[in-house]
């Protein structure tokens, strides 16, 4: 089995997404002496700087900027690119749009994608590990049959390499035409999340509040901590979301987002199995809870038994001091 990769680069505000670069670097590492190339669809201002991650080529497909993301057009474009490049594997990041695209691509190419993988290695063939039951079990999967095979990697799990400064490369335009009028769905309005707010799935640090927050306005206590720690995002348990204190896009757990940040701080969260499913693969877990018997302490690396309304403001001060050093 060959070992060449073609990685789909998703863009946000005409820049390559960090999670796509992670996927590119992961592919580059597994490819060894083989090649990892990138394919970019539509406007991407930093496309030529992808060379800094050791790609063999950056293929581009022109797309009308008015089209927004339409998974049918993008899937057709990636399939056409793959037809020209003939990679053994087509990979990407398991973002919301990445999942939709790889679903369509799977159907087009007749191969089921391995989705949302957290490990990838070469062992006589490509082996990927994907969490199932929200991480309550891990499945190792491999591919059979003719190339290309498809996979997506979970954002924030695979490290991006440091870019080799100064490298850039020529772009290779692919002769693939995208007809925006053929898109079956049309984006009519884009609403951003609250300005400057990072998504829990992409953050390095997630600070979550549960029923112990006791009210909508108290989330400001956590927002202050989010504000002092770089790359931090605000999360929540379902109890807090269902109480209407915070939007569902913040929910962590089996029916929310599954996150694997470097640091997860659970405040006033008991640790129900559905919540643990969403965060137990975090590198380091901290729990602040006034009940010493709360199940969350069974998996927390560091536990603080106490009132979050006393502890969290102190944490804000201590983090400030430490990060100012």
């Amino acid at each position: 089995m060959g070992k060449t990769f073609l990685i789909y680069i998703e863009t946000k505000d005409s820049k390559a997404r960090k999670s796509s670069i992670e996927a590119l670097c992961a592919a580059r590492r597994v490819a060894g002496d083989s090649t990892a190339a990138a394919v970019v669809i539509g406007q991407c201002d930093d496309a030529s700087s992808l060379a800094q991650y050791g790609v063999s080529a950056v293929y581009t497909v022109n797309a009308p900027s008015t089209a927004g993301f339409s998974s049918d057009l993008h899937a057709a474009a990636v399939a056409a690119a793959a037809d020209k490049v003939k990679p053994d594997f087509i990979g990407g990041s398991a973002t919301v749009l990445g999942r939709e695209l790889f679903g369509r691509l799977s159907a087009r190419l007749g191969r089921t994608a391995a989705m949302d993988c957290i490990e990838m290695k070469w062992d006589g063939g490509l082996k990927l590990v994907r969490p199932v039951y929200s991480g309550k079990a891990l499945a190792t999967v491999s591919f059979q049959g003719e190339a290309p095979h498809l996979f997506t990697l979970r954002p924030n799990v695979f490290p991006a390499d440091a870019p080799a400064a100064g490298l850039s490369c020529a772009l290779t335009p692919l002769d693939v035409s995208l007809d925006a009028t053929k898109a079956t769905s049309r984006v009519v309005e884009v609403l951003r999340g609250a300005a400057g707010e990072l998504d829990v799935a992409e953050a390095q640090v997630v600070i979550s509040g549960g029923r112990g927050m006791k009210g909508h306005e108290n989330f400001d206590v956590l927002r202050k901590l989010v504000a002092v720690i770089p790359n931090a995002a605000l999360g929540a348990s379902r109890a807090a979301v269902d109480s209407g204190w915070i939007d569902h896009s913040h929910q962590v757990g089996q029916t929310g987002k599954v996150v694997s940040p470097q640091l997860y701080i659970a405040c006033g969260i008991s640790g129900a199995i559905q919540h643990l499913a969403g965060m137990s693969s975090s590198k380091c877990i901290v729990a602040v809870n006034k009940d010493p018997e709360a199940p969350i302490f069974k998996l927390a690396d560091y536990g603080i038994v106490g009132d979050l309304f006393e502890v969290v403001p102190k944490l804000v001060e201590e983090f400030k001091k430490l990060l100012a050093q």
Partner: protein
Amino acid sequence: MNIIVCLKQVFATDARIKIAPDGKTVSEEQIEWIMSPYDEFALEEALRIREAKSGKITALTLGPERCTTMLRSAFALGVDAAVHLKDPLFDNLDALAVARVLAEAIRKIPHDLVLFGKQGVGVDQGLVQSMVAELLGLPLANIVTKLSVEADKVRCLREVDGGSEWVECGLPAIVSAQKGLNDPRIANLKGIMAAKKKPIDVWNAQSLGVTADSIGASTLTHDSYVLPPPRKAGKVLQGTAEDTAQQLVSLLRNEAKII
């Protein structure tokens, strides 16, 4: 308005997962089965659209005998018809195979709108709806929290990373439901009693016109399943709020080396 709702039966979310002795599957012993939570939002939305516009709702599932209970629950909530795709050939299919069989069934049922959950809780792939959309050449509005049906199109608010977007799709269209779309109702006794007598249409491979060949062999193999290494309980910090906050920050820097 003809609506199809695709329902998947999954493990209850509080299930303790055990690996089967062969190490290649997850044990189904002592598992309680439920309708996938996101499919409940899809079903509720279908009921609301029918209430506003009239029409017919068909619940569609692929799975073994146990799925009957889920289809009964769908009847109890008010669907008009239920189609159960059941055949030994349909056991242990991967996502693409499921999508191919569902797509065949959808072709045979009149539809303006096909509703899905955003993902089946458990395997957590969220693949089937986009595969079906591609196989049928239909538009997809994925992970939707608001939906309005207009004369010949749907307007949907879909979730994307770090925000949301309004998208429009012409009908027929596929929409997948995210939490927040609505607040699902609970079946009443009258509905539950009436559901017992409703006929479920069972379609097998032959009546559907699919074969092992047309479904295709999976290109993805599950080599093994393992449970994640258990996390060990760590340190509980002692002292006042100030003491513990100081200790924590220092441990995160010097021991965990995270900050």
